[in-house]
């Protein structure tokens, strides 16, 4: 089973000067748990903000989300994996860097994102298929 079959291809981007409140609003509107923060300078690479970051690094510390910029919260660099990589490769990168999602990249472009839940689903599907290999 290819990683691309289970990744989410809809990636939501936000500008670095947006506030964390904008980030939360977008997460709620789009029912997503992470956003890619665009970098003004491509060499720096994009960053990522997850719901976990918002909760632990902003809300739990009593910081006003409307007073904090997205690029101040974003984690860098993004962890990328080739789209031909397997589920096991993806899991290894997640474990090695202790991250819950990695981005599937193709020639410097983000093609999708794979989260822990996607990995769990993929493994359950593989079990259900009982090793049957189709086209």
């Amino acid at each position: 089973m290819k990683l691309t079959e289970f990744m989410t291809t809809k990636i939501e981007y936000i500008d670095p000067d947006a506030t964390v409140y904008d980030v939360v609003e977008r997460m709620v509107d789009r029912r997503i748990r992470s956003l890619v923060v665009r970098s003004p300078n491509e060499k720096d690479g994009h960053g990522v903000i997850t719901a976990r970051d918002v909760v632990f690094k902003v809300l739990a510390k009593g910081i006003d989300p409307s007073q904090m910029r997205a690029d101040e919260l974003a984690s860098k660099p993004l962890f990328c994996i080739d789209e031909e990589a397997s589920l096991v490769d993806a899991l290894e990168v997640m474990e090695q860097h202790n991250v819950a999602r990695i981005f599937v990249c193709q020639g410097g472009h983000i093609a999708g994102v794979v989260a822990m839940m996607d990995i769990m689903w993929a493994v359950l599907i593989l079990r259900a298929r009982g090793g049957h290999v189709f086209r």
Partner: protein
Amino acid sequence: MSFGKFFSRGRKEQQVTERMADHIDLLCEACAIFHQCLVSEDRRLARKVPDMEREADVIRREIVSTIYAGAFLPYLRPDLCRFVSLVDEVFDLLQETANIFVYRTVPESLKGECIRVALLNLRMCELLRITYGAMLEGADLKEKKLGLRIYEKKIDDIKYGLLRDMMEIEVDNFWQGRLLGEFIDNLTGISDKIEDASDHLDVLNVSMR
């Protein structure tokens, strides 16, 4: 008790179970062709789906006739026929989707996600076929049903994004908009029908205990 073992001695029962497998195999083939047709944008491929649906209708009639000609115990017959009808409903929806695709181009901004849904529909059909095989062997269907539910959830998530993106597309006239809406509805509704069919396989499995 294994469904397959229980009935394997009867020639009619054997015939029915084999044709039911053919019916699902044909559905997998039709889904694969439709996926290919979306990827390649080759509308000639979309025209093959209605031909396959007609072939599936022939198989369905044959199965129902054989069942009511004496295959299986009477209490099982309605459930078997219901399962075949549910698979046929998947065919109908796939055919409607393919027919719309012949007349309505999918906007570039929706194409990628539509292809993903078509591929997931194909994977669901394949898993339905595996589940059917497992039912004949009397295996536990719990894991297989969970797999199907996961696929269905994945498609539901994509559907939400597709509907949101669709509303931002400008259309030339009412009919272009309506056809696009129906295309998305049908394409994302196929998984619900496959799930209904898989639920009915469970009913058949339980009724054998």
